[in-house]
């Protein structure tokens, strides 16, 4: 007759599982905390780098060695088991400019990087003021509705895309010099003081974005200098990002990241063919419109393929 296992056998089962628990728990815990095996079974303390690439099919290199590629299901990659040191992360995708950043890795800590990918060849489309309207018998120049709609974005009253002058009485906590033009996204404020752009954090200390804490993670700065250039004009956040700026400087439209760890990636997106100062507006998540005098040009931020 079959009977339940004897109490001795059950006790042995129990002891086996207890021993398994006791022996596995320290290894799993140490591994979770960033410890790893070194040569001669020595235990090493490691750190990591968290890379969030906003697209799939992005290759992530660590010191020029391919570590991983993002997929539809996973846009983030955690590079693990890195000994404390400086590492250069390079992010590439066909049709886009490479993005690079050198970050220090500390024991048991994870450094964050948020690459941005700009198409290597920006597709530009001229938006004429007038277009030909053709019917069966005649052809005539008429006002281009698209031009009419886009030009209204540049009217000073168009909010919130246009930097405005801050009303001291309503937002006195922004900064001491709160009459300066500013933009704000998710409590990150960027204000222009002459030829300088400053970033300020308006949220709680615990939520401070990493790029305010570059010099010392435990004591993050409330504000820092992002960018300086002569004749800074319009500036705005890059679509869907509050760590990247679009800045018009004279005849150039430049992408500037707030993360100042070297190199601070600054990419010229567009240069006026006439050499005159340009203005711009963000139309949607994938499109900008640049104004040079009366000329309007649309820029696509999406890779258009071969």
């Amino acid at each position, binding site marked *: *007759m079959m*009977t*339940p296992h004897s109490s001795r056998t*059950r006790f042995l089962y129990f002891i086996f599982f207890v021993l398994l628990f006791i022996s596995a728990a320290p290894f799993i815990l140490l591994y*979770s*905390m960033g410890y790893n095996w070194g040569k001669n079974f020595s235990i090493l303390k490691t750190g*990591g780098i968290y890379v969030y690439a906003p697209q799939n099919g992005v290759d992530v290199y660590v010191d020029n060695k391919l570590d991983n590629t993002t997929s539809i299901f996973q846009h983030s990659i955690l590079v693990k088991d890195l000994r404390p040191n400086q590492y250069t992360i390079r992010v590439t995708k066909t049709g886009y400019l490479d993005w690079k950043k050198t970050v220090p890795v500390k024991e048991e800590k*994870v450094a964050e990087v948020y690459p941005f990918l700009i198409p290597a060849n920006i597709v530009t489309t001229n938006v004429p003021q007038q277009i030909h309207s053709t019917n069966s018998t005649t052809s005539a120049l008429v006002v281009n509705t698209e031009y009419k709609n886009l030009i209204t974005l540049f009217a000073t009253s168009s909010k919130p895309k246009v930097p405005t002058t801050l009303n001291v009485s309503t937002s006195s906590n922004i900064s001491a010099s709160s009459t300066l033009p500013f933009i704000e996204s998710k409590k990150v404020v960027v204000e222009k003081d002459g030829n300088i752009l400053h970033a300020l954090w308006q949220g709680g200390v615990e939520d401070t974005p990493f790029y305010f804490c570059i010099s010392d993670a435990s004591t993050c700065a409330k504000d820092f200098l992002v960018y300086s250039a002569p004749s800074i004009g319009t500036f705005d956040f890059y679509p869907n990002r509050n760590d990247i700026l679009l800045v018009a400087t004279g005849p150039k439209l430049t992408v500037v990241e707030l993360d100042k760890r070297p190199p601070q990636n600054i990419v010229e997106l567009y240069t006026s063919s006439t050499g005159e100062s340009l203005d711009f507006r963000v139309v949607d998540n994938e499109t900008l419109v640049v104004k040079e005098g009366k000329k309007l040009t649309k820029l696509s931020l999406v890779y258009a393929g071969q």
Partner: protein
Amino acid sequence: MSQNLPYTQSPYFHIGRASELEKKSDRLLYRFLEMVPALLSWGTILGSIILAYFVPVAAAIFIIVFDLYWLLKTAYLSLHLYNNWKRTRHNTSVDWHVMLEPLKYEDIYHMVILPFYSESYEVVSKTIEAISKVDYDLKKMIVVLAGEAKAGDHAELVAERATKEYGNLFGHFFVSIHPAGLPGEMPGKGSNITYAAQQTRIHVLDKNSIEYKNVLVSAFDIDTVAYPKYFLCLTWYFLTAEKPYQSSYQPIPLYNNNLWDAPALSRVVAGSGTFWQMAQQERPDKLVTFSSHSINFDTLHKIGYWQTNMVSEDSRIFWNAFMAYGSDYYVVPLAYPVSMDANLASSFWQTLKNIYKQQRRWAWGSENVPYILFNFIKNKSIPLNKKIRITFVQLEGYWSLATNPILILLLGWLPVIIGGRNFNQTVLSYNLPYITQNLMILAMSGLMFSAFVFWTFLPEMPQHYGRGRKIFMFFQWLFVPVTIFIFGAIPGLDAQTRLFLGKYMGFWVTPKHRGKATQ
């Protein structure tokens, strides 16, 4: 109650709740012990949240260690489940007549108590019909139909019809109608079957000079369908038990009566209950009577029958006997099934509500915790090491039910969410979700085995169901993370919180509803 078992005379022996105690110090102590399960469960949940906020590293370490504990516990229980599955397969195929041949069992009577309230005649009839077809001398069967006066004419009409149809098939067919509102009683199964057993003693056993020691009482639910060899198997285990009169006998509850008609969530909850009981069957030192169970009548008489002042009479009868015999009392696992109804109501939503209420009633078994701990303090005849071991097993059981799914499914992510900036920059913070996820995937892979075991116990599929339903019987186990949370942890916490607050639950009768296929 017996003079030979002195503890049965103790004022604490049949205590139902704190307010029934005379001495204030006893009342306070018992009241505190009623709070213990909720204190442990809520303490763990709130403690984890506080820890995740103030010391997220410690919380993350706790969660990873806990996940590992849960994985190994799942593997450990699966091992027992496998052993019991093998034993059950063996016991359902063995020739019990051959097994019983060398034993003298002709004098053994089986008293089967079938309590009912408002269930339809069809439900009652199916259960009696199954007993009429068992492979045992029907002359030795005492079928007791136990109705409730509170149900009005319904009880008498059902009893009358059943007596007409089945009265002559058995050695004895006895009907008892439990009067409403007897002093000191709570309406429910306990008071009904106790009344029925006492009445049967007077009107059947004593009248026919049937020796109490020769009678095995099976306290069934009205939907408990006995398989043909069940009473042969029970008899064999009784006659071969080391201490037959100091043992209860526990079958495996399957929920096959209406399984094909019940929705997937109901099947998974029912199946999970079966697996838990199967794993417990392989650990007789931890096994406690549950739902349908059997006990010798002499023992039952000596310990004063089932308690009539509380809800969980099925498990309490074991603890009563355990206290009465100074811990020298056991549960013999039969590794043989009986079949009951899975939850099924007229609508899906009502079925879910019924599942929740049934699970909460079962989780209300935590009312045994104050009883056990209080009587451990008062009963000096129980060895200290047993008291410590049982206290741990019982507390861990109710704590696990109410907290483990919450710790695994919700709190595993909490340090990452509320742990703050410094914690979120650590390797531990980034690894916590990965490690938790991987350990849980490993644990869930054990579900494949559960699905297989469940499959082997499936009754024949009614013809009007397609093959898709059969295949879904396998994949339904993906609902387990949902069911252990909604129909495990939440009703567990609900019941413990009510006990903590002194909002005592009454007996909720699970409505019996069957689809066309199983009526």
